[in-house]
């Protein structure tokens, strides 16, 4: 029961801060709100008894990626909001498209009894030992392929970082 309240609190926090990411005038505020979103999601992981995922989520997203974001935004000193005003028809089209997508989503989810979807919840799955077993047994191939992905991403980064040859 108590965890229900925490769930609602965290969800509200995540929603609020992710909306604020879009609405903030200053890029720095957007980045900080995004960090807050990640913390809220990390909290959700803890609720699911997935402490390892929660902490890794925070280390990777809040601790590394968002710091880099912040670093870049600060370095570029994107202080002012520099957006060219969009023509009215673009705004109208965007609003219309958004409403239509919203209607479709509502329509789709309304007819769906979400309680029907029940997967057995394994409370131990998020613990590091279980996770390691699953990762190295069931998901061995995706795990290894993602290491190739990271390797090539690194090669790509090195390529883009090379100085110009004159």
């Amino acid at each position, binding site marked *: 029961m108590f965890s229900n309240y925490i769930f609602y609190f965290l969800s509200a926090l995540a929603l609020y801060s992710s909306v604020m990411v879009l609405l903030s005038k200053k890029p720095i505020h957007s980045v900080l709100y995004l960090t807050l979103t990640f913390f809220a999601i990390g909290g959700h992981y803890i609720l699911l008894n997935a402490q390892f995922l929660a902490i890794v989520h925070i280390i990777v997203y809040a601790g590394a990626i968002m710091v880099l974001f912040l670093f870049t935004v600060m370095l570029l000193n994107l202080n002012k909001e520099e957006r060219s005003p969009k023509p009215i028809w673009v705004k109208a089209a965007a609003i219309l498209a958004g409403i239509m997508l919203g209607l479709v*989503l509502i329509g*789709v989810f309304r007819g*769906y009894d979400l309680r029907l979807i029940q997967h057995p919840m394994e409370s131990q799955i998020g613990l590091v030992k279980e996770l390691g077993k699953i990762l190295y047994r069931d998901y061995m*191939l995706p795990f290894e*392929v993602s290491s*190739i992905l990271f*390797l090539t991403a690194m090669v*790509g980064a090195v390529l*883009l970082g090379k100085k*110009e040859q004159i």
Partner: protein
Amino acid sequence: MLIMRHELLLIAITVILLLVEIFLPGDKKSRVITLAILLMTAVLILGFVPGPSGTLFGGMYQTTALISMLKNILNIGALIVMIQSADWLRKPENKEKISEYYILLLSTLIGMQYMLSSGDFLMFYLGLELATIPLAALAAFERFKEKSAEAGVKFIFSSALSSGILLYGLSMIYGTTGTLYFAEVGPAFTGTPLQVLGFIFFFAGMAFKISLVPFHLWTADVYEGAPVNISSYLSVVSKGAAAFILTILLFTVFSKIALMWSNVLYIIIILTITMGNLFAIRQQNLKRFLAFSSIAQAGFILLGIIGQSQYGMTTVIYFVLVYIFSNLGAFGVVSIISNRTGCETINDYDGLYRTNPRLAMMMMLSLFSLAGIPPVAGFFGKFFLFAAAANHGLYILVLIAIINTIISLYYYLLVIKAMFLNRSDRPIPKFKSDFYTSLGLILCLAGIFAVGIASTIFEAINGLSFGLY
């Protein structure tokens, strides 16, 4: 081991290239080109050796004779691109980045092959990402040219967006079926509204990768800004892989909603072919021109899918094979001329026949093949596609496609007219091609004719394909 032979071989040569890059002294870097091409040739040949089929890792990875053949087709395309880029890589400003180029190119190929071989959506997604992310780095290869950097950024943004949409769709499919394995999703996919929405998101993500209208907006800018060889790789190998896996998934996992997706395809085909063609007419830059032409070609590929039959799948594969040769031929000529002179507009090609008759002939044959003029292979490719759709009773669609083919003939002929009939005060100077350039073009030329004439190829593909009924 043997089941995963294609990927393992590619990974092996990628690692070899990585080690060579680390230990080779700086002044000998250009030898990597030959090494990479030789290694890739070996992989291509080994890939044709028949090997076992089966599944690995609890069904996450699967291969069949059909999938092996698709991988070989992709290998051919990649090899030709690798050969064609040799000339461009030798330029002094690219000399330091040769190994990176090949490593990234090969890793995208690895990604595509894992994508084709995937037995569940997780592997599919990983393969897709591995096939996409390095391409962004490659598109921005000439980072200090503004256009190239722009191409890289646009590509990574649009592909990140499309991956996001695709993942959202997959999450809905996972949520409603409770599994990610193709074999289990298929039976559980009954077509509830949520599943259909998931499918639509998934399809939109794939449409980005194949650049179907209305998800094509990134194509022209990226093709124009990226190095020519990367544009050709994007338009041929990358697109071909995505078309293959889309065909397979539509025919297996999403077979239960075939009625629905064929309606979606119907509209998208008309849009894609028409828009691609109409915009291609207006282009002056040849890279943009080929970009829009490749959008239109993607629409033609879908004609085979909408046929839903075994014959339809065969035509898709056959057409992509033909398309690899013809488009790489056209891009090959564009890349040579762009490297040597920096000219990229149609007007620059005025009088090309007088100075460089061979290149002009090559360009003409490639464009004929793209347009679908007999006796080159492109004619058969398109003819079979139309037949596949007509067999399914979609006569109006085929009629529209034929009208569009005639439109496309017009703009392909514009280029040919410029090369052969127009005169120019400053024609492109005559130059001699080196070994790799000629080899790349000769391979394309051989392909354009051989694939069209040798009916055994079509039979072989047909023997492995499958359809909905």
